[in-house]
């Protein structure tokens, strides 16, 4: 990201955010955190070609996050400009939000990403399965989001959808390849399913800002994506000789990420993601 830090931003939490901003930050955080997680493979991929593939996906996700953060920053700044007028000092708002301040300076409890995306990268099977679960979700979500009343969101969704279509294709094929591969790859997929299944339900459980965004016509009612998602996942699992774990679709699901209640793994991401800007506020390189 380019260096757009406001030197005064470090000590401030972002100005107040409404449900609209919360919704956009939720979309941004999902992409940023998964992008950051996948980037851990950089230089460590199982083979050179897949190392490049997964880091390409990381960059796609971080690109999506940037689009959402930039838009959220604009909305947040407009909102606080309306509240505090004229801006103190007459010039730019002090501590104005930027894509960077939103990514690097918000606290853990202010992040609204799903628990699924913050889980450790695990082995290749776990990374693949998580990508498949999430890409399938994003694919359905962004298809709807293209029809958003909010033209900016619709445009970001449309642009991202091509990338997501590829992520879905790539991860689906890997799920099949590993599930239907050797004994070891099959076992690893089963272990990955056991590990990640409990985090899938959250994606389809709307929280307050999603409900409001959906009712206002610019967000998507994610509960409606659940059935098509299950259908697609079943199809790929069938092809991969895999089955959902015991409890299946009705298994107990972990939630809370969207409301800022995270697993301990998000804090670990922040150690890398936010270290520089928190230690050297506004640093330049």
């Amino acid at each position: 990201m380019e260096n757009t830090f406001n030197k005064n931003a470090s000590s401030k939490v972002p100005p107040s955010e409404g449900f609209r901003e919360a919704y956009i930050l939720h979309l941004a955080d999902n992409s940023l955190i998964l992008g950051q997680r996948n980037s851990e493979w950089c230089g460590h991929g199982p083979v050179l070609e897949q190392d490049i593939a997964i880091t390409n996906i990381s960059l796609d996700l971080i690109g999506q996050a940037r689009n959402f953060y930039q838009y959220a920053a604009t909305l947040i700044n407009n909102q606080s400009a309306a509240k505090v007028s004229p801006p103190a000092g007459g010039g730019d708002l002090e501590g104005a939000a930027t894509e960077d301040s939103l990514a690097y300076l918000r606290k853990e409890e202010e992040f609204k990403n799903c628990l699924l995306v913050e889980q450790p990268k695990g082995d290749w099977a776990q990374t693949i399965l998580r990508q498949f679960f999430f890409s399938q979700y994003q694919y359905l979500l962004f298809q709807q989001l293209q029809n958003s009343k909010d033209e900016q969101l619709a445009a970001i969704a449309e642009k991202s959808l091509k990338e997501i279509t590829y992520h879905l294709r790539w991860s689906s094929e890997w799920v099949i390849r590993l599930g239907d591969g050797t004994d070891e790859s099959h076992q690893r997929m089963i272990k990955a399913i056991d590990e990640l299944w409990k985090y899938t339900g959250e994606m389809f459980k709307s929280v307050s800002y999603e409900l409001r965004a959906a009712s206002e016509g610019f967000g998507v009612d994610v509960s409606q994506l659940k059935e098509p998602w299950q259908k697609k996942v079943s199809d790929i699992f069938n092809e991969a000789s895999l089955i959902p774990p015991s409890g299946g679709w009705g298994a107990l699901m972990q939630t809370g990420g969207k409301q800022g209640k995270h697993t301990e793994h998000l804090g670990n991401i922040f150690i890398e993601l936010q270290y520089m800007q928190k230690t050297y506020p506004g640093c330049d390189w």
Partner: protein
Amino acid sequence: MKTFIKKYYYGDIPDDKAGGNELKDSKTPPSGGRGADWPLWEVFIRSKQGLDHKHVGSLHATDAQMAIENARDVYTRRMEGVSIWVVESKYIHASNPEEAGELFEPAVDKIYRHPTFYDLPDEVNQM
């Protein structure tokens, strides 16, 4: 490590990486990192509509589908292409560098084979 070069077979690629099927009979596991036991594929990219596919490099993949996707990720990240061809390296047969003399040198003194001794009509501009 045993590294004999298979002379008549695609340049200088060591035998254990030359392709997939040979390995199935091999008693010893392939040397090199993980993925070295995957077949090698040659990648051809067409950069624009109307141009021809050009060889850009090679990569490892388990099957053609994966080879195309790997090629997409490795060789078209900077908008290099609109079309990808892949072919397993073992299906490419190469001329033997040692035979370069008899193969190519006889053409050196046959300059009359170049179309430089004719007056070309102006309309023909792709010669």
